[in-house]
């Protein structure tokens, strides 16, 4: 019985070296090793998880949290994801409350501009993760799995005006459409505050409970 030269492990699902003093590669799996780490029981917030060395870390953390059962941010990510999906699903119902605006970017554009450097970095580290549906035979020609063309999702809350000429407030960045999660929160999404959309009143940051009093409660009620 040996002791691995590794951090504390809670449930070693990786094959540990049977003998000392040698480098062993048999069945070493990074994912299983990650799951085996003995984590302290402290509460984790998204801002504490900064360890992904990637310019797309915000989206990748969201994707991980959404898809991994034991991720510390899983509940938070599911709640946020559903809130963002509901923005789309209920946009007709709440047409008098807010308006969605989508703004696409082409990171591979050849036109020179002050954003060339940031675009180059985004492109170089662009993920290749994508939902399986993006690769289906009937997927659109411009595949959803195209990280070079992210789409920004803005919400403009109605502030007044008439039905014919409604007035809307400034655009608030709600998230980013992407190939891995359809839509993901951005760093500023926590401050999103759309008072006329019950599931966003007070903002994502406050994590208010979903309300059954809203129209279409089935779409916004936890299940």
């Amino acid at each position, binding site marked *: 019985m040996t*002791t691995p030269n590794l*951090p*504390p492990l809670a449930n070693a699902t990786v094959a540990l070296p049977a003998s*000392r003093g040698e*480098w062993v590669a048999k069945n070493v799996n990074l994912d299983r090793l*990650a799951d085996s780490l003995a984590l302290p029981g402290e509460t984790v917030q998204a801002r504490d998880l900064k360890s992904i060395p990637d310019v797309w870390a915000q989206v990748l953390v969201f994707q991980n949290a959404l898809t991994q059962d034991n991720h510390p941010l899983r509940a938070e990510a599911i709640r946020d994801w559903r809130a963002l999906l509901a923005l789309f699903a209920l946009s007709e119902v709440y047409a008098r409350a807010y308006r969605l605006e989508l703004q696409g970017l082409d990171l591979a554009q050849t036109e020179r501009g002050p954003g060339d450097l940031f675009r180059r970095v985004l492109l170089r580290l662009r993920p290749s*993760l994508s939902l399986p549906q993006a690769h289906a035979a009937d997927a659109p020609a411009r595949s959803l799995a195209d990280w070079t063309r992210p789409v*920004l999702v803005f919400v403009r809350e109605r502030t007044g005006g008439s039905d014919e000429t409604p007035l809307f407030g400034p655009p608030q960045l709600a998230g980013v459409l992407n190939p891995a999660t359809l839509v993901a929160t951005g760093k500023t999404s926590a401050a999103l505050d759309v008072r006329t959309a019950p599931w966003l009143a007070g903002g994502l940051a406050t994590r208010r409970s979903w309300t059954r009093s809203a129209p279409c409660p089935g779409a916004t009620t936890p299940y």
Partner: protein
Amino acid sequence: LAAVNLLIGVGGTGAKVVEAALFNFLAGFGPRDVSVAFVDQDESNGNVRRARELLRTVEQLRGLWTGGGRPDRWDASAPVSEGGSLLASVAARSIDPAHDLWAPHTEPGVTLGSIFSANVLAREEPRLKSLMDALYSPDASEQGMELSEGYRGRPHIGAAAILSRAEQDAPFWRSLREILRRAQGGQEVRVFLIGSVFGGTGAAGFPTLARTLRDMARDATGQAPNVRVGGALMLPYFGFAPPPDDQANVAKPEHLLRQSRAALKYYHDLFRREHVFDELYLTGWNPPFQLGYYAPGSNAQANPPLLPELIAAASAVRFFDPGRPPPETENPTYISARTAPDAFGWNDLPAVAPGREAEPYEKLGQLLRFCAAWRNTIRPSLRSRMFGGDPWYHKQGAKGVKYDRPETIQNLEVLDDTVERVLEWAAALQLFATTGEFGPPGVPRFNLWDVSPMATFNPRADPTRPVQLRPPLTDGTAALNAYRRIVSARDEVAQPPDQTALFNEINVAARPGAHEGLGRIVAAVHHAARLTDTAPAPAGRSAR
């Protein structure tokens, strides 16, 4: 053509592993030559500074003592069997003496926002600025965070910052390009990166630089056939006191494991879709070594050497070794183990290959014994000529040396400095393995070496200088005791010969070989400090 070897320490932890590797190289354990470089956004980082100083010292030592035509010279290129010396036989050199450290951004007050011209983007490319805001908080915690002292445990910031400057026309990158170009001429190029999973620069630069270097190495077909990229990734292995300000925008000890899990999952996904490393070595520790203090960056971050860094250095030595067997699996990830959780001996250090388990003991042990003998016995006698009547003094040609010659004075100063660095490093590593000052010791039963007769330990006085070497132990009994204790015996191996055996050897015959002046004495003492006479010759190198 011999392979070109390049070792890059990324961040403070990476620099500390390079430091441990340099001591291996000094002991003659490593490839014939290796170029060394550092990457750290925090130019004043104490760990990086110490490793660079050691690199310069080793380079200077080789230049003064092993170069052709020198008045005092030992032959570090001939095989040991022909009189050559293992001491400093690995030619470790910086890729560029003036530019061996690359700090991606040296402008004062630089931030991520300034790097990517966030203010200009807001006016001229507002959509791109919005995407930046989605990925990085626009406030002082991310886009506005000053980067002069590193990335403060935020590798997602570091990844963007490093990549924004990678491949630019800087001397550091020109040197890297020059090395990689040799691969396209058919020469094998081996690049080994060392970083951590939990830090700022090290965590950010480790995968980012590996991906960038592999991209740079691709030929017209998109392949990089003669380039091998290896990496040592340090997992959590030490703990530190929490920052004084709980809200500080810095790395916190309680988050290390959680951060590591997220990072390892990221690596898992990344490596499934992109060939980044040909070999990856992981090292961590439980229970964590306790530093007992907090240092966010800059000079204050001069942490003591810790045992896992020596283990990781063994992975670098292995990666560069031309004689080891090829990996059994494609793009393997390696881990290692020790016999017991609370003990560590020579047989626990991962070997280069089966059958070569004794090498670390024999070579590092020989270096330590040489340092003890040199500092306590040989050097004082040269200084005072107090042992001028001893046979070795005549036998090894010490009597004919012109000690007041400026070159000889300088040579001795550099050798003395090197010896002290070896001993201080070994003493500090021993201290922080065994101390219970700040919590449970990492390795209560530390069975590699014991420098305590030659050093005073005081981890609480100045954490950046936890050991002080005592004056040379000129008392014969004390010197004999220090020499006897400095290397712990390997398991199931007889106690190594004592200092009497060393003198028995150097008193009898001059060390053969192409040595000159004081170099013959150094070579003789180093050779006589060996632990066994049966060291197998490393495969792939001539018997040395």
